């Protein structure tokens, strides 16, 4: 069979690329070894959001006691919580399959590898030829020496999402977005959580002020943090026993029932036959140009297989860009890393784009900062969501939006207005001048933007 485009992997990169290619009139085949929607939809973003939502509802139950409502949680069953998360994933995965069908994407199940720049071999020996190939095979959890993942007591995120019963105690290795979301889920359902992070701060990619705000809140929830600390050794006996060593050389042993390894993800590219074809890789990632083209003209790569930010929304965008480039579209806007939003869904939420304040201070560009706290928002006070703030960072001279960091209720939605301003080169004046509905959390955006001029009104 001859195609214009063959895509390996039906995650948020691959399936979006396939639909976009169909919109542009290409004959497309999409090959997936597991389930449509990839890790994001089946073992990442979506099921975790389902769990986080329920964790949030569960942890809010106590708040009704103030008005005389006591909720009986004695029949609480994590198994049912888990089932709901699987249902959400299954519903959306079927949804993706439906979209592929509707768009007439040829959808094949199975493993595929590259024979040459225009030919794929399927596991059943069949070959597929296409004018272009997109590699969108994603990533898997990284493991660390001495912590072999068995998905029984030593878990990857997929193992954690497969658990139908909660452990009493868990140690989470790595305080990135994934680690912090699981810490929130587990601790909300009453698990004793210890988070171990090698860096000085949790969420090391985020603005320090925001990260430490999250840390304070999570500590209040009862989560224990061990930063500047490395997990050295794991001993399996009746219980698990973990040897932790701080960067100052101090050692400590922690007893636990389970360990979650969330120290990052690595590209899933080993069995594609890339080396044989001479497709360039660097440190385990496929090297591409800004449009996703690899060292082979007919082969593109998108998503987690590259060294760009390992986020579903980046993969989708890269998929669209690659397809448009293949289609010969002109003036394609490439991704500016400073306009990629990051979203972490524990409560309080954290959302951001652009460099941290510390990183900006090291650059030569002169920055004006304004921080507006949620306490000064009518909506936040009325709904008891005052723990949060927005930090807006603009160029001192032009008031160009450079970066924004939001922590607190609804942060992952609120960020987009500011991001649109950055993306479209609107100025702080534009954000400040627009009427925002009252009362909303979004008013914080307007207030922070006013802070760039003569000042916010409500602080």
């Amino acid at each position: 069979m001859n195609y214009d485009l063959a895509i390996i992997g039906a995650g948020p990169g691959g399936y979006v690329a396939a639909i976009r290619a169909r919109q542009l009139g290409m004959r497309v085949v999409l090959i997936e070894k597991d389930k449509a929607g990839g890790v994001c939809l089946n073992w990442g973003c979506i099921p975790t959001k389902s769990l986080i939502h329920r964790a949030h509802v569960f942890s809010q139950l106590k708040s009704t006691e103030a008005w005389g409502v006591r909720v009986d949680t004695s029949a609480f069953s994590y198994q049912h919580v888990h089932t709901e998360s699987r249902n959400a994933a299954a519903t959306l995965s079927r949804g993706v399959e439906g979209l592929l069908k509707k768009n007439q994407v040829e959808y094949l199940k199975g493993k595929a590898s590259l024979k040459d720049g225009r030919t794929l071999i399927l596991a059943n020996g069949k070959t597929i030829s296409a004018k272009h190939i997109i590699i969108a095979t994603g990533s898997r959890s990284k493991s660390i020496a001495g912590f072999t993942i068995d998905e029984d007591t030593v878990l990857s995120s997929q193992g954690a999402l497969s658990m139908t019963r909660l452990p009493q105690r868990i140690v989470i290795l790595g305080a990135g977005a994934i680690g912090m979301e699981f810490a929130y889920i587990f601790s909300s359902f009453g698990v004793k959580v210890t988070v171990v992070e090698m860096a000085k701060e949790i969420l090391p990619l985020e603005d320090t002020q925001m990260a430490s705000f999250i840390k304070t809140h999570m500590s209040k929830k009862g989560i224990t943090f061990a930063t500047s600390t490395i997990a050295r050794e794991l001993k399996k006996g009746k219980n698990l026993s973990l040897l932790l060593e701080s960067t100052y050389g101090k050692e400590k042993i922690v007893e636990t029932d389970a360990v979650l390894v969330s120290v990052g993800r690595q590209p899933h590219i080993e069995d594609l036959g890339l080396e044989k074809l001479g497709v360039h890789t660097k440190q385990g990632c496929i090297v591409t140009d800004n449009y996703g083209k690899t060292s082979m003209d007919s082969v593109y790569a998108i998503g987690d297989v590259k060294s760009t930010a390992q986020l579903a929304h980046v993969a989708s965008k890269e998929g669209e860009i690659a397809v448009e480039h293949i289609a010969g579209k002109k003036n394609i806007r490439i991704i500016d890393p400073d306009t990629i939003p990051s979203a972490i869904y524990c409560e309080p939420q954290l959302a951001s784009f652009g460099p941290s304040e510390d990183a900006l201070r090291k650059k030569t560009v002169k920055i004006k900062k304004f921080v507006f706290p949620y306490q000064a928002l009518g909506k936040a006070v009325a709904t008891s969501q005052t723990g949060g703030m927005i930090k807006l960072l603009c160029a001192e001279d032009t008031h160009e939006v450079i970066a924004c960091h939001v922590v607190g209720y609804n942060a992952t939605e609120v960020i987009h207005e500011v991001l649109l301003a950055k993306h479209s080169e609107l100025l702080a004046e534009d954000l400040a001048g627009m009427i925002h509905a009252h009362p909303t959390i979004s008013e914080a955006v307007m207030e922070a933007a006013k802070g760039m001029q003569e000042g916010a009104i409500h602080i």
Partner: protein
Amino acid sequence: MAEKLVMVALSPTMEEGVILAWNKKEGDTIVSGDVLCEVETDKTSMEYESNQEGVLLKILRPEGDSAQVGDAIGVIGKKGENITKFLQTISQEQEASVHEASLKDKQNDSMKTDIERKPDTDKLIKASPLARKIAVDKGVSLSNIKGSGPAGRITKKDVEATQQYAVKSVAGIDKDIPLESVRKIIAKRLSESKFNSPHYYVTLSVDMSRVLAARTEVNKSHDKKVGVNAFLIKMVAEALRKHPQVNASWRETFIRQFGSVDIGLAVDRGNGLITPVVRDCVSKGIVVIDKELKTLIEKAGENTLLPEEYSGATFTISNLGSFGIEEFTAIINPPGSAILAIGKTVFTPMCDEQRNVVVRPMMKMTLSSDHRVIDGVLAARFMTSLKAIMEDPIYVLL
């Protein structure tokens, strides 16, 4: 009772003045009419004569300081009077007015940014707000920039790329020169004239043989040599007498024909241009005109021209002949409706009536006219008359 001595408007357009020198010092007795100080105004320097009497108790603005019209520059009162309280009041008033002015400035500034954000010519051009701001800050026009954003929108990157190009072509560092008040006035008046009055131009060549011969003749019998400009003024006055419609002014609802021919001559004084005016040129002879002109030019050089000596020209002459300029066009100097630009007299081979080639001293002159007042035919008639007069100056006597 102590009184404020305030800066007054020493010329019709003065808003602010710099005190060049105080002629009186603290403790001096002042009689009405005494010159208190010398003030540099927008056009010239003037003497400030007091219309108050008493003892100069305090000088509030030392030499070199500037003062807005209405600002207190000193205190006058009785000898030995205690003015401590009075001075406090003055300084409070001053602060209040400075605050008011800065508020006004701020308002103006914010209005300005609003306007600058969407400059007229760039209004229909698609550009991001940031790109517009950078373009305004750097003085780059958006009209020549190709946009790379969605639907061709001009982005920051596009504007900066243009700038880099502009910067590359400059070898030195740009120098920003603060505006003197003279420069501000010139800029304001001339742009008003050029933008408001529809200018058009007619040019003629004049054979200057007879004017030059006449001048040589006149100068033989005079100790002081009569300048070419005096001849030009007289002959222009004569042409204006014949065509009074040219000696007129546009007044929006009517046209005013002036009763007197008052001719201004553009004079360079190093830091800007000024036009001293010779009044009633029709009734004056060339020698008188020359004498008056010389006094005025001298005063212009010293910055001592009085407002009535440099304003209200009904017609203006600008002569760049001595700089070797052959012909040029000038901007009309209001309230007049025409200005005559005089070029260099050049010996040029010409054809005489017998079709012989002869060498003649030829001069090109160009009349800029305000079409609202002077139609083309009128300008042509005026120029033909002027040419006839210049080529046969005896006409002046007729």
